[in-house]
């Protein structure tokens, strides 16, 4: 059964999957259950080598429509690349 939460998160997941088809991790949580406060987590090779600002810009771009039309009242974003840089050679 679709809960209020999944009904709200699914359209955002679809947009993010279009933007980050090769994501290692892609999650959308409805933080409050009210369908307008979201926490998005994305790990994608598209983020490799980008600053956090540029990583978040890509997420904002993917969610431009729901951000503009008020579907998203509040958005928390957690992004990371998938290439290991710490302690490794890149």
């Amino acid at each position, binding site marked *: 059964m679709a809960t209020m939460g999944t009904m709200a998160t699914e359209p955002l997941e679809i947009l993010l999957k279009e933007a980050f088809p090769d994501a290692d991790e892609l999650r959308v949580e409805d933080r409050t259950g009210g369908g307008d406060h979201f926490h998005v987590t994305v790990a994608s090779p598209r983020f490799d080598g980008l600053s*956090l*600002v540029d990583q*978040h*810009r890509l997420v*904002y771009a993917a969610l431009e429509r729901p*951000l503009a039309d008020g579907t998203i009242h509040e*958005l*928390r*974003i957690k992004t990371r690349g998938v290439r290991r840089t710490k302690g490794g050679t890149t």
Partner: protein
Amino acid sequence: MNEDLRERIKTVIDTEPVSLFMKGTPTFVMCGNSERALQALRGAGAPVTAVDILPDPEIRQELSSLSGWPTIPQVFIKGELIGGADIVQELAANGELERKLSDALGEDYRGAAEERVVSVLVPA
């Protein structure tokens, strides 16, 4: 587009060591995300210059068009966009924020730490 307002916002971004565009003021924060950014900056000992974007919707419009960042809060160090609440919190947690602050402002940046509030609106 409001050229005057845009110029004043740009001046704050470029000249203040650390600027925080937020909802409310540090003494009366009106949004959880602005609070998160403020606390992260305080934790790092940053000299915060706060701008309340709530008094006029045009402030937010001009700010976002300047920065290309759609949400509030927005944190800048010497003209460079550092990010919103999530990024600033993440940088504070891993020590990067303090490193950025000392790179941009000098290692003794904490000595100058004081919070102030400026307005980008023209006094009526």
